Structures are given as C-alpha cells and as structure tokens.
C-alpha cells in the first residue's frame, strides 16, 4: 500500500510542479512537458489509486452490531 500511495503522490507532485513551472516560465518545452507529464502522471496516479481502493480491507459487518 505504501508503494502505491508514494508512486501516486510522487507522480501527481511532479505533474503539478511542471504545471507551475509552465505557468511562470512559458516556452514550447515547458508547455509540452506540462501536457505530457500532466497526462501521464495523472493516469499513473489514477491507476495507483484504483488499485489502492481495491486493496483496502473491507469493513467488518459485525462492527455495527
């Protein structure tokens, strides 16, 4: 679980950092990087989060009784 969360958050952080960079230093390179890293990073994070949800332990039904 740790690995999944770390990968997801690192890819998101990288995508957002490149986004900030492209806002303040706008050039063809940073624009292209923002789009590609944004899409790829976001996709990786989404996959990791879906896997994480699938691996979460199910709530025990006896807890509520």
């Amino acid at each position, binding site marked *: 679980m740790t690995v999944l969360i770390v990968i997801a958050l690192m890819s*998101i952080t990288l995508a*957002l950092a490149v*986004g900030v960079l492209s806002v303040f230093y706008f050039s*063809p*390179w940073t624009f292209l990087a923002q789009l590609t890293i944004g899409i790829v990073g976001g996709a990786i994070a989404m996959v990791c*989060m879906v896997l994480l949800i699938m691996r979460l332990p199910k709530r025990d039904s006896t807890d509520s009784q």
Partner: protein
Amino acid sequence: MKLDIQLLFVFLVTALALLGAVASFVLILLRRRYGRTFVVVSLGCIFFVWPPSFFATSIYNLERSKSTQFCASCHDMEQHVEDVMGATSKSLAAKHVRRTWINKNACYTCHTDYTMFGPLNAKFKGMRHMMAALLHDVKEEEIDLYHPYQDRDCLQCHDQARFDRVEEHIDADADERCIDCHDNMHKVRRIDE
C-alpha cells in the same frame, strides 16, 4: 510578467493541489498508518484537486500559445514573425499588424480555420508543429500551408459590404481567390524566391 485573474486562478488551484499532494506525502513518511481519513484525503487530492488544476493550467497555456511571441519562440518561424513585426516591411501581414487591423495574436488570427472545429484543429496542428520543431530539425523549405489560403479566412474581417465597394472585386471571376491578387502575404526569403 503580467498578473491577471486567470493566472492568479491557475496559480491558486495548482498551489492548493501541490500543497495537498506534498502534505499527504509527508504524512506517509511521518506515520505509516492509513486511517480512513488519510485515504480519503489522498483520494480527494488526486481525484478532485488534480483534474481542475491540470485543466486550468492547460487551458491557460493553450490561450497563451496563440500569441505571436510564442510562434516566434521556434527558430523556424523567426523570418515570418520578423516580417510581420517589421516597422518597414511592405508585406500584407505586416500592414495588418502595423495599422492595428489585427491587435493581438497576429499569426493565430489569420491562420485559424473559421469553421466549427477550426480553433480545435488549429490547436492540434499547433501541437504537431511544436513537436516537429522540438524533436526534428525542420528546414525552412519544409514550412508550407496545408492547403492554399482560403477566402473565408479573409472574409471573417473583410465583410461583404466593404468588399463590394471595390470595383475590381465586382468584376472578378468566380474562381478567383483573394491571394491571386493580394499575393504579398509575407516577405520572407523562401517566398520571394
């Protein structure tokens, strides 16, 4: 750099998302236990904060990519932009800019198809041009229009009423195009040759 509302919005959304992501990351490093609250915060950060931030940044950058300065940032287009911005240039494009017929985004204004999906197509083509300029060595001879310049792009600004005032226009053949007579579009070396 000009600080406007759009930039402020993009910055705030992105900064918020970045803060959320970093905070979650630090939380993981500090205590390796996952309560439901922590998982919900992490999921929220990724599913609900990241997409608006990505789209806001992308739309803001796409809007900025319409500028003439952005087109000039590729070495291959330097000649064209120098001609358009030239104080003494006699080309049709330069006259449009100098006489403030086109106030901003000079390249985009003339080189966008004014059809339903024209602006979208222009952005996809722009992406391809950007990739080509960054990843390949584009030669000056390779730069050309996809198709001959279309009359409808001229007629977006030059409306019918003013168009009909010119005698030559009334006498023109049906198959004649604007650029057949107004052919001095850009004054660059390759076109001159």
